[in-house]
């Protein structure tokens, strides 16, 4: 009977607090992850929204092609009307 009582005391004084302590630690860690995950999700959504302008790169590419073509035409005209520097060979 004495051993039973000792077992009860150990159960209430040692086992129960240890179980509660460990479970609270796991619970706190899990709860602390939730805000971080929400922030990551918000950042990813914002990043995805920022990339909406990436489609305009096609327009930029087209404009660059036209600009370089214009520069090439301009250079060709200059090549005709401006003399080469002495000693420069084509």
């Amino acid at each position, binding site marked *: *009977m004495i051993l*039973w*009582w000792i*077992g*009860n005391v150990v*159960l*209430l004084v040692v*086992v*129960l607090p240890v*179980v*509660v302590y460990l*479970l*609270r630690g*796991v*619970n706190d860690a*899990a*709860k602390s*992850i*939730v805000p971080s*995950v*929400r922030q*990551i*999700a918000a950042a*990813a*959504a914002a*990043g*995805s929204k920022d*990339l*909406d302008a*990436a*489609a305009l*790169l*096609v327009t*930029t*590419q087209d404009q*660059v*092609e036209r*600009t*370089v073509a214009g*520069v*090439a035409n301009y*250079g060709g005209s*200059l*090549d005709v009307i*401006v*003399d*080469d*520097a*002495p*000693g*420069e060979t*084509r």
Partner: protein
Amino acid sequence: MNAAGAVMIVAVALIVLALVYYLVSVIVSLKRITDGLDETIASVGEILEKSAPVNGIVTAINQELDAGVDLLEGMLVQKAGLSDAVGLVEGLYPGAAAAGLRNFPESTEITAPRIGEVYTRGTLTLARLGRESPLAAGNPAGPALRDTQRGSLSARLLYPETRQSRPESLARSPVIGTDSPEQYEQREDIGQPRKRLPEPASGGD
């Protein structure tokens, strides 16, 4: 049932209650984490989808720009010569001559001539009249000559000082014309028919 058994049952029940409470709480938290990660994965998927063509487009743009740079560099060197081209680049972007022209590695060994030595003084002066003109790199420490408040005064300062303060000291302009005291062309053949040059000898080839 004795008292000890009852106490044990109560203790075990307390432990089970604690387990249930905290484990359910952990499950709820994990569910929230899973939902958040699902949203994140969806957004990351969108990012990957939207950024997929960027690399190819940027590469194509860089190739186009490289072709433009090659064209302009080649034409600059062809028209101005390598030395003057380096000087012009240095005038436009001070310090850039050290990097040289991309397609002309030997340009890094050239001492960039000052723009004022490449072009005439008049060109440099006209260039300095403009604000932030690249040709003003000949004297980057000097202020722009143009004064927006007193534009005419600034322009007058470009001329020699005598013309500003003592114009009467300037040399008189020469009198020209048939009645001028000094005839600058005192040759007999003035006014006569032009002499015909002898026919070149038409020899064999």
